[in-house]
């Protein structure tokens, strides 16, 4: 058997693939976070809670209305987006003129309230959620047995990331968005409804978190704290990628997933700190992040 650094090649390839799967979740989540920060300058600490809301929406849809995975993949993110739009309109938008810190504190408090109430109501233990039947089972790739569902997650994540990136960087709507954050008064003067655009942006970011939540539900259990376990890593991803850089967030998400996967092979005990070590190093060498612009 071919060995690389004392690890059999198939095992290494398997770990790389698993890292890529985890990276898909990091990318999806950091994408939403980067959209919100890049366009609204809000540090959205409620992102993990919105991810959790997405998973719970899918779980509740199935438990109470019998709506399965595929419709939930669309409905659940819309529910999260709607709730988040409401929150943005009634509360968050009042903080835009203040220091960024207020937005951070507000969303952090929001996350604690959401997670606390779900924990109180559903308990801390996870609720099981089954993925779609059609993706049950797995495929033997020779070097590893890939569960079909996880393969689907990778593909879905790449497609969604690309679509969002194109939407913001290449379309007219995206141009409005970017312009509206650059100089709201001017864009408003051109007859564009800026507050509506900002609400839609926040809803889009939150909806992406909700979508990641639905995708995660069959892989991990649906639990109130699933987001808080992830949010810190995702923030590290965004910081490494460069705050507000959408492309940077996507690429960093995948790369860090893979690096974390490799750490699990060589020194598993370090697997949950490797991301932060990288963050510290990047911040020292390039304070604006790998893809960020120096301000």
């Amino acid at each position: 058997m071919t060995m690389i650094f004392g690890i059999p090649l198939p095992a290494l390839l398997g770990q790389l693939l698993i890292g890529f799967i985890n990276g898909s979740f990091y990318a999806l989540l950091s994408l939403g976070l980067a959209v919100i920060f890049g366009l609204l300058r809000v540090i959205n600490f409620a992102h993990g809670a919105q991810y959790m809301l997405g998973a719970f929406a899918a779980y509740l849809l199935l438990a109470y209305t019998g709506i399965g995975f595929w419709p939930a993949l669309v409905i659940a993110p819309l529910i999260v987006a709607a709730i988040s739009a409401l929150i943005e309109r009634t509360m968050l938008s009042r903080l835009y003129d203040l220091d960024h810190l207020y937005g951070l504190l507000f969303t952090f408090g929001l996350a604690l309230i959401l997670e606390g109430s779900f924990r109180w109501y559903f308990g801390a233990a996870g609720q099981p959620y089954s993925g779609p039947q059609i993706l049950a089972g797995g495929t033997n790739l020779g070097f590893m047995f890939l569960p079909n569902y996880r393969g689907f997650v990778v593909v879905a994540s790449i497609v969604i990331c690309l679509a969002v990136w194109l939407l913001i960087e290449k379309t007219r709507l995206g141009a409005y968005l970017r312009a509206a954050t650059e100089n709201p008064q001017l864009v408003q003067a051109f007859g564009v409804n800026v507050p509506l655009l900002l609400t839609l942006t926040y809803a889009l970011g939150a909806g992406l978190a909700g979508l990641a939540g639905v995708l995660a539900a069959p892989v991990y259990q649906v639990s109130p704290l699933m987001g808080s376990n992830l949010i810190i890593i995702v923030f590290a991803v965004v910081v490494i990628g460069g705050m507000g850089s959408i492309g940077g967030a996507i690429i960093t998400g995948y790369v860090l997933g893979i690096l974390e996967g490799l750490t699990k092979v060589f020194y598993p005990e370090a697997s949950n700190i490797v991301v932060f070590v990288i963050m510290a190093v990047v911040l020292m060498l390039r304070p604006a992040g790998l893809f960020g612009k120096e301000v």
Partner: protein
Amino acid sequence: MRIDKTVLAAILVAGVMAPAAAVAQEVSDGVVKIGILNDQSGVYADFGGKWSVEAAKMAVEDFGGKVLDKPIEIIDADHQNKPDIAVNIAREWYDTKQVDAIMELTTSSVALAVQGLSKEKGKIDIVTGAATTELTGKQCSPYGFHWAYDTHALAVGTGGALVKAGGDSWFFLTADYAFGYSLEQQTADFVKANGGKVLGEVRHPLATTDFSSFLLQAQSSGAKVIGLANAGLDTANAIKQASEFGIVQGGQKLAALLFTLAEVHGLGAEAAQGLNLTEGWYWDQNDKNREFGKRFMERTGRMPNMIQAGTYSAVLQYLKAVKAAGTDETKAVAKQLHEMPVHDLFAKNGHVQANGRMVYDMYLFQVKKPDEMKGKWDYYNEVATVPGKDAFLSVKDSGCDVSAFGK
């Protein structure tokens, strides 16, 4: 205002008189207070959790609510699986809340820390929720007791069953703290002593959500048995993800070394069927257990596992010991706990060794197939009894220096 002063005076006097009170036949502070300290919101929330608190309250009610004519009180707190938080709570309980004994103590790292503090403070602790044999081994306490189960019993019970069934090569997925090491090492020793070998192990952090990477390493090791030296949600997640990666279909067996009714229920019979596991108590073993299970169900909506039933037993036995000693003074009660046989619905023929280990018969169960189940909680078939003397280490083998206790 007047009353406050009287109380204050009484406290001052009691403080001055404390050394003398140790000999007096009475209950300190006029109340026997038991603290249930465990994980109520994390990975082990169902393993013991607030259900253990409910079991403790049932024990108090069954005892009559009073001991030596003084009221009995149960207080509880969530230690979040963090030894530092647990020790702070325990210190506060002992120093300012008049707690006489702390029990349950899920999570080995927490149990060891709190037992250390209890020993220093001269207080009794009875552990039902943690597994490490260290509690009655090198880190034993003259006032520390270990109820329910430990890593040695699990290694002998579940490990033994799989070795007997031909599982002679093992790979471990181990929770990265005291409990995991203890469970892995004792199971590995047992496997080796029976002619088997250990091909490797991987340590994962507590509360891991994604086991795929670790499972893949276990899979490529080619071991016949993958030993899960973890607990609670961690084990449930590992089993669920193992089936995703086709590990069982590939011919490898999973050994969930610490798995209780709570996790079986959380995982569902479909995913858990066929698993071997070791518990000291099951609700459907006899009429007494069924009756207790039914009462517990009415209060909590679930059946108890050995941690919760064990906590009931520990509280009950402690109260019996206080009654027999005629005081809640630590040394007198500890003496009674060491000497009295344990005979209740949890342990039929239990006794406590000099190192604090409560020895009783444990059982090997197998999880039923979904179509064999007659009711919602009808999960187990009883496979074998693991006699207490085999399940638990003797004082000599435990590594506990009991001769130091008198000093």
